[in-house]
């Protein structure tokens, strides 16, 4: 494991799938039928994210143009190729890295809004580059620091003119929420990061319930409010497709459960005590910087992307 050149992981992705953990047998594997297990789980992610993007664009009036989507994908793929080949990575000829680029592109398209055509490709290129440039951690689990889609969303809100985030864009429809939970559950289980999603969602839901109880809303209003907040599409997307990224969350399970809970708590304070916008995106961005430190303090052999358990990791 630790014999690999650190950059070699760069082509591995962002949100997870196809991950096989080595070393710590205590971590329960998700047993899938062999055929299913052989498929790189990022394909599932791509399928789900694509359907969410379509749902959003067609049924939710996402303020997004097809040109912006096309440019996002083009820029992400080109940036990925340029880094893979430019650094002469051993796995430069593999397609694994591009899968990650596609997953990131979906994330950026779903999250970022802009009033021009240059914002999306710029963010896509920056996000993919961040994987190669911003890297840290102990040798055995050195990795990129930021989840590319999270980085792009943060940059859009904080730095880029003419770009913004629309946290309310999904509305809060219970039907869509169920779909998210079901699909998200499948993906995260497949990548063994369901613990992060679950820890985050449980903490977030508990904090929101606590707030409603503390503010002492009447039962009817309070429960409706809680449901409206918890079934927000953006929150569910965050839980299943962003904070669950195996590459940018702590490697040891206890550490990453604590991490997910901490992100939920700080984001809650940011949003409901300080009344600042985009708590989840901002806090995950800031918290990511702590992950290499956490991995150093509680070392574990890192996850490694591969395309199914049957074949050796594509390097």
């Amino acid at each position, binding site marked *: 494991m630790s014999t690999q050149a650190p950059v070699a992981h760069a082509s591995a992705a962002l949100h997870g799938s196809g991950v096989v953990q080595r070393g710590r047998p205590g971590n329960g594997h998700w047993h899938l039928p062999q055929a299913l297990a052989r498929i790189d789980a990022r394909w599932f992610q791509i399928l789900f994210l694509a359907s969410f993007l379509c749902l959003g664009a067609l049924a939710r009036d996402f*303020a997004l143009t097809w040109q912006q989507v096309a440019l996002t994908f083009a820029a992400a793929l080109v940036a990925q190729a340029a880094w893979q080949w430019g650094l002469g990575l051993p796995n430069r000829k593999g397609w694994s890295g591009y899968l990650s680029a596609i997953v990131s592109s979906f994330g950026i398209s779903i999250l970022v809004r802009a009033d021009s055509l240059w914002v999306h490709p710029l963010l896509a290129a920056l996000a993919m580059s961040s994987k190669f440039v911003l890297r840290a951690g102990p040798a055995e689990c050195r990795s990129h620091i930021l989840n590319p889609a999270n980085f792009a969303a943060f940059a859009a809100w904080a730095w880029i003119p003419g770009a913004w985030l629309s946290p309310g864009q999904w*509305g809060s429809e219970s039907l869509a929420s169920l779909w998210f939970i079901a699909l998200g559950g499948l993906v995260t289980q497949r990548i063994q990061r369901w613990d992060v999603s679950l820890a985050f969602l449980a903490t977030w839901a508990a904090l929101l319930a606590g707030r409603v109880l503390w503010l*002492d809303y009447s039962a009817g209003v309070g429960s409706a409010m809680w449901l409206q*907040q918890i079934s927000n599409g953006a929150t569910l997307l965050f839980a299943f497709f962003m904070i669950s990224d195996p590459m940018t969350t702590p490697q040891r399970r206890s550490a990453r459960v604590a991490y997910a809970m901490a992100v939920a708590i700080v984001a809650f304070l940011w949003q409901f005590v300080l009344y600042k916008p985009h708590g989840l995106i901002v806090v995950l961005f800031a918290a990511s910087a702590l992950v290499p430190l956490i991995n150093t303090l509680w070392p574990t052999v890192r996850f490694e992307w591969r395309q199914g358990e049957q074949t050796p990791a594509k390097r």
Partner: protein
Amino acid sequence: MSHRPTGARRQTHRLVHTLLAAACVGMGLVIPQASAFCGFYAGKADASLFNEASQVVLVRDGERTVLSMLNDYSGPLNEFALVVPTPTALQQGQVRVAEKATFERLDAYSSPRLAEYHDSDPCRMNFWWGQNMYPRAVPAPMAAAAGAMRSEMAKSRDAALGVTVEAAYTLEEYDIVSLSAKQSDGLEIWLRENGYKIPKGASAALKPYINMGMKFFVAKVNLKEQKRLGYSMLRPLQFAFESEKFMLPMRLGMLNAPPNKPQDLIVYVLTKNGRVESSNYRTVKLAANENLPPFVKPKFKEFYKALYDTSTAREDYKVVFTEYFWDMSWCDPCAANPLSTEELRKAGVFWVGGDEAGNFQQMQIAPGGQKPAQGAVAPSSPPRVLPGRPIPPGGGAQPVMLTRLHVRYTANTFPEDLMFTQTKDKQNFQTRYVIQNPYAGSVAACTATTAKADCEAMCRSRVTDVERMVSEAKKNNWGSPGDYANKSSDALQTDCLKACSESKRSAIEAATRYYERELPERLAREKQTLAKLTGWSLAEIDRMGADSGNVTPVPAKGGDVQPVPPADNRTWWQKLFGAAPVLHAARG
């Protein structure tokens, strides 16, 4: 303006609503049980259309916030009271009486508009023969025809109750108290003991705001003052405060509303950087820029109301609609002129006219410049509008963006107060609809017109011109006159006649295509659009078209004509120092 397409059903509606009471002001709680509070009339498919609508102007930059609320309470004035949760206890000076005109101006400027265009005559003889030889021979009016392009618009007992009176004063016709409370039951008892009529359930609804640390602004009408001032209607109130919360406490207004009864709220948000949207509900743009059949023109208000009804029902009253977003410095087409710097300052836009920190500070200082003593009574000066700070030239340079949000909600569909976020989106948007009037003509008329054109005579003079040009060309070395060279007069005449009759034929063809195919197809498309947008049946629409009698189209003067805002011909110094321009709403 005051045309209200409502009728008996709505009147019953109103009565029911009146009995059920309370505040429909999206913002606060209007106390008297008999409150016909809802119903805002302002001027197009304007807010008057939605007579259960509350209107709020929210001006915000950073944490600085100026909030104005317009209510149209028409019940007994001695029973009127307003309770608004505010982030801080509002002191004298932070509250002023605003002008209803501000709301009307904002409404007029941002209301959905109908743009009207006219087709040009399809029966055009493009008879160019002999006209395009050399630059000076090109007839100027011909070249101009091609260029006609349409631009794409666009705040002992009290202690026992846990209530602290933070401030109490009289402002104009209002008696105002700012309260902080420890328990909601205490607050409810305090309000009752002090002569405010509180609807049942108020305590439960007030509780979360107390727990959030919010204060309460309570106002009632001082009948003596009002009589003295000579006002018969209630004027809007405006608050200036700093708060990290970018929100509207609309839930309190739902107190006595039946859980499924929709109410309307129109929020005009004025910001510096970009469009504002809700952060906890979906924000959706209404369908706009659609072409409608010309006979909709006299029924534009009904159209827009039906469109809004259909759109909100389709979304189950769960979304916030954007009706308008535009940089306040211009508009296209203009439903009304943009607000002047003076008007913006009255609306609470503190960053226009320079020194925004100073301007905002001014808005929080009581008259006389001192923090008021409790119970102090303000001098009854004329309405305190923004302090008369001189506005330096070019003071309007800071951008003012207006987002007009329209929400139709029920207590069930909007369980949370409305939270906002400012985006960096600067793409203008307006609910604009288009009618394109057909040209008043016919194939027969075209045939008759073209028949009258005397090719023989026209050609004779053109041949003469051509021959003169050819000889001049030779003399001045202008180059070869091409097809016209080396031909006899007779040959030229024959060529010209051929071109002339060809142009007649193509004019009749164009007219036939226009009247027999393009127009009916276009009208069918427009009717489909109308049906889709309003939920009206095609049969109804056909009847409407028939009733209108075929709209008498107005012949256009050359090409598409777009509505042009009234020109402001004043000089820059007149604009700076002079009276406000007379505002004309460019209808349609």
